[in-house]
């Protein structure tokens, strides 16, 4: 089976190799110029193979796929968002291999990273759509406002709405990847009361969309999804919220380094206490790891350096749909979730206790009345 899988991949890679590359230089040349040895590149490939759930023996195939990745250009569209996802991809102490491959070479359009501006940028966009129609991977960052015809987001001098631009681009894309929680589920602008009617892009498109949520998602998950498409020519297996299973199959909690302390009932009571010093579980200071599907506890961020829970703050559940509303308050357990009420701070326990008290008072009154005036027999 392994053999068959590898053959499929090699066949796919050969097909791609026949296509012209989009850059002036090949990926091999650029990597060499930037001081990456073949060994570094294979190490990177092995790590990526692991991320995708492939055995280490697939590292050379992954390397080949990365080398031909310039045949499938990436067009990066920005909608209602903060550019944090792009930051996640490019923010590193030195250009990484991910960076070189996906930003310096393959990226045909990315309005924050490209040198062009204004009319020129617009022209580049149209050019890329035309030139690579049916071949490019469309990465979308940001949710799409839909209220009032989507006019809360317009792009460029023609004031084209994000909604129109997205639909037009998606029609020509070979694959669509929603990068980040906003494009996957709407994100912060879709949080209550969502004045612009923002939704995730899959809600307005009739093509399959792979969600790579996170606020931001790790670079590994973004690159991993793109490489998966290059390797298989198909989109990865997804979970119930269309997230690739290789990255979002398990909860943060399942692979958390503090999990032992959770099971032991050892909790940080407040930030900076002895429990925090001892690395206890952050559940009581609001960690939402038990409700969040992502691989942060395994892959971490910034070249595997650290991640929120390691740094001492709980997970806020940023890769879950509707997380700004669902996971609040972020530094208290979910049991303290606030519900709408007269004073807007009622938690389930408070509402429950109030109802129970009302029932108790009613019961006491009824019992007293019945004792004085017996029920009719």
């Amino acid at each position, binding site marked *: 089976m392994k053999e068959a899988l590898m053959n499929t991949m090699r066949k796919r890679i050969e097909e791609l190799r026949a296509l012209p590359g989009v850059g002036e230089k090949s990926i091999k040349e650029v990597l060499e110029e930037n001081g990456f040895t073949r060994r570094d590149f294979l190490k990177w490939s092995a790590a990526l193979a692991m991320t995708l759930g492939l055995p280490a023996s697939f590292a050379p195939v992954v390397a080949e796929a990365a080398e031909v990745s310039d045949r499938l250009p990436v067009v990066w569209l920005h909608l209602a968002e903060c550019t944090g996802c792009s930051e996640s991809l490019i923010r590193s102490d030195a250009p990484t291999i991910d960076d070189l491959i996906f930003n310096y070479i393959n990226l045909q359009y990315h309005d924050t990273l490209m040198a062009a501006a204004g009319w020129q940028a617009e022209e580049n966009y149209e050019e890329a759509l035309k030139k690579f129609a049916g071949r490019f991977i469309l990465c979308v960052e940001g949710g799409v406002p839909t209220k009032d015809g989507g006019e809360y987001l317009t792009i460029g001098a023609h004031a084209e709405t994000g909604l129109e631009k997205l639909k037009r681009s998606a029609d020509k894309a070979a694959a669509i990847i929603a990068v980040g929680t906003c494009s996957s589920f709407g994100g912060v602008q879709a949080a209550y009361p969502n004045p612009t009617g923002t939704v995730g892009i899959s809600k307005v498109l009739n093509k399959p969309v792979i969600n790579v949520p996170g606020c931001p998602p790790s670079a590994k998950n973004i690159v991993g999804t793109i490489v998966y498409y290059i390797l298989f020519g198909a989109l990865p297996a997804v*979970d*119930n*919220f269309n997230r690739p299973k290789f990255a979002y199959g398990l*909860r943060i909690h399942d692979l958390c380094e503090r999990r*032992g*302390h*959770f*099971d*032991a*009932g*050892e*909790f940080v009571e407040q930030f900076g206490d002895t*429990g925090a010093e*001892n*690395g206890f579980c952050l*559940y*009581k200071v609001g960690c*939402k790891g*038990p*409700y*969040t*599907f992502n691989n942060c506890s395994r892959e971490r961020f910034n070249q595997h350096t650290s991640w929120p829970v390691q740094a001492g703050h709980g997970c806020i*559940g940023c890769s*879950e*749909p*509707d*997380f700004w509303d*669902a*996971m609040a308050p972020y530094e208290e*357990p*979910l*049991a*303290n*979730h606030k519900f709408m009420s007269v004073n807007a701070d009622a938690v*389930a*326990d408070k*509402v*429950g206790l109030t*109802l*129970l008290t009302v*029932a*108790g008072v009613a*019961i006491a009154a*009824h*019992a007293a*009345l*019945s004792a004085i*005036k*017996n*029920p*009719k*027999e």
Partner: protein
Amino acid sequence: MKFLKVVGKYIGGIEFSAGYRWQHWIRAISIFALIATGFYIANPFITYQNTAVEPTRFLHAEIREWHIIFGFAMIAAVLYKTFYFFFFKEGKYERESIKDAFNVKLMIEQVGYYLLINKHPHTKGIYNPLQFWAYTMLYVFFYGIIITGIALYAEVYHEGLGAFFYPFAKSIESFFGGLAYVRLWHHIFMWAIIIVVFVHIYMAVYNAVFGKNGGMDAIFSGMKWEKFEDATKEEAQKLLHH
């Protein structure tokens, strides 16, 4: 009801079978155990003095284990009772309450009884309309808490039963809009059950105090006693052999 014996002016029969009584008490004990352990899981309020940095005594895991054990006990009891209601032969007295449940006049009379205005109306089945709808809601809450509970369980225990339930758990997760909402609803269903149980206990005590027919005893002994005003002891004996 199957009449068994006559004592004085009362004729007695089995109201609740052994299986019925077992499921009631298993359910009752499970509910209280689940509330206690559930509150701990929601916000772990007790912990022990830590002597070592390394986790060694797994308090949370232990409490969670008991939560799961009682959870499955409750699921078994609820399933048994559901089958009892719909399919068991003895369930026919309960099923007869369905007709009463849609009788508005009866419902108003029942409210009147609780308001100390009129006498307790005569019902066909064993539940009065208010009681019937309260129990119906209770089962909505039961199934709500069971379904959300299984969805939470399957995410922690990925093998065996968890694996069996996994596709179902995932569809529940999608339905509620994420695991966090599943957890929130699990908590809300608990509060709904607490309130129904609280009122249920009051009504049971109330009927024992004012009904004066030993009705409360039935859930322990299974026996229900009915007074026969006009019949003689001999006629009652005939009824026994009928």
